């Protein structure tokens, strides 16, 4: 079970307190009617699904209830950083286990 640091509660809690929210930094087209079917499909369905560094959303469903983002390595499952949604995505090269 992952141990996840909630950037709002500023505490590390077990994964069972959280709900996974899928890939982060996917923004809904501002004018859905103006985009092509292919662009709409890309927004709805296409995912980067990397074997490596992955930015993803989590929600502290049994805690503060808020959404936040994390950067995790999908082979080791190690969480390298968690950050609030309005904060910029951390540079993967600068991350290490002790950085948060």
């Amino acid at each position, binding site marked *: 079970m*992952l141990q996840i640091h909630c950037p709002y509660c500023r505490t590390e809690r077990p994964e069972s307190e959280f709900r*996974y929210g899928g890939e982060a930094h996917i923004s809904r087209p501002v004018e859905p009617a103006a985009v092509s079917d292919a662009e709409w*499909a890309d927004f*709805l369905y296409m995912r980067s699904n990397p074997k490596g560094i992955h930015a*993803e959303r989590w929600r502290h469903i049994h805690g503060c209830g808020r959404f936040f983002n994390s950067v995790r390595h999908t082979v080791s499952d190690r969480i390298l950083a968690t950050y609030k949604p309005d904060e910029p995505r951390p540079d993967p090269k600068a991350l290490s286990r002790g950085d948060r």
Partner: protein
Amino acid sequence: MRFSLLSLARNALSGNKRWPAQWRAPEPKAEYDAIIVGGGGHGLGTAYYLAREHGLRNVAVVEKGWLGGGNTGRNTTIIRSNYLWEESEAIYELSVKLWETLSDELNYNVMYSPRGVMMLAHTVHDIQVFKRHVHANRLAGIDNEWLSAEEAQAFCPPLNISPTLRYPVLGAALQRRGGTARHDAVAWGYARGASALGVDIIENCEVTAIRRSASGAVEAVETTRGVIKTKKVGVVAAGHTSVLMGMAGVRMPLESYPLQALVSEPIKPVMPCVVMSNTVHAYISQSDKGELVIGAGTDAYTSYSQTGGLHVSAHTLDAICDLFPTFRRLRMLRNWGGIVDVTPDRSPIIGLTPVPGLFVNCGWGTGGFKATPGSAYVFAATVARGVPHPIAAPFALERFTTGRLIDEAAAAAVAH
């Protein structure tokens, strides 16, 4: 060589030390007419049908590890065809029909055992959904029948149908032609059959890049054993499909998750069939070695770790202990994870891609083993002819752009 009573007797007398290798281990050639990436059941089957049905014999299967070492060797081997939609019924029923004669066709015992697959209903909603499936399947000529809780227990005596369970068994849908097969034998049987027809099977050969010409078409794959030229590449790489397709610049509607399974210590025959429960999340059958084979769920998050969290398999064991109280004192011998590639509509993707010469067969999610023969059969036709086989056509990648999804979320037994 062919297996026969005579060959078995002769080799028994010589201590089983003179069996020849069942497939060749050639060095990769400089060029092939087609390369299949992924040496699991689906990939090896594709190569077999390319050679057998389409006369395409200058074919290689490249596998980064060993044959059947991915999800083919990690799943719980359940076979059934009682899916809801006509498109799914067509491909899964083709598979069941091929399973029925596969051992004969390959001259290799894949141990297909139609012992019956029983899916338990625990809520009113389950009953309604399963009855809808039963009716849809029977309209399509596929066997599936509704059982009361008492009939379910008569079919599977260790099942606990006590009304005091937290999620009591209210009934079940039973497909009698469903069952299991021996996972390794499926990979080995197809490998042996393909190799005998001239297909080169190249293990320990990881694809590191897919080369495209100036026109965009596939022209070669770069591997850890050198560059191999080809005009057709079929990617059949399950959980690693997004990574491979990324090498050709194609984004996929896939997410990869670890799916877990575990086996108990071996005991005498006690489970006569396969039992699955969507609602409490448990899958169980017994292998011929006597181990109870138990399927657990996926982790909540995407991962390539091939392990998965312990709480996920513990959750399934909770459900097993409730449904089968006699199994409570059994010890579990091993647990493991396989990386499954899940699509948004829980149906596979089979067919052409935006890159000329690049074909893909993926997205089987948590239930690909049952489809191995049918998937390989229609994918081979698609690769050979360059147009989708009629059964594969609805599963094209374009459906995510056109919106014609095949929403099998209710039919897949894993609670997504």
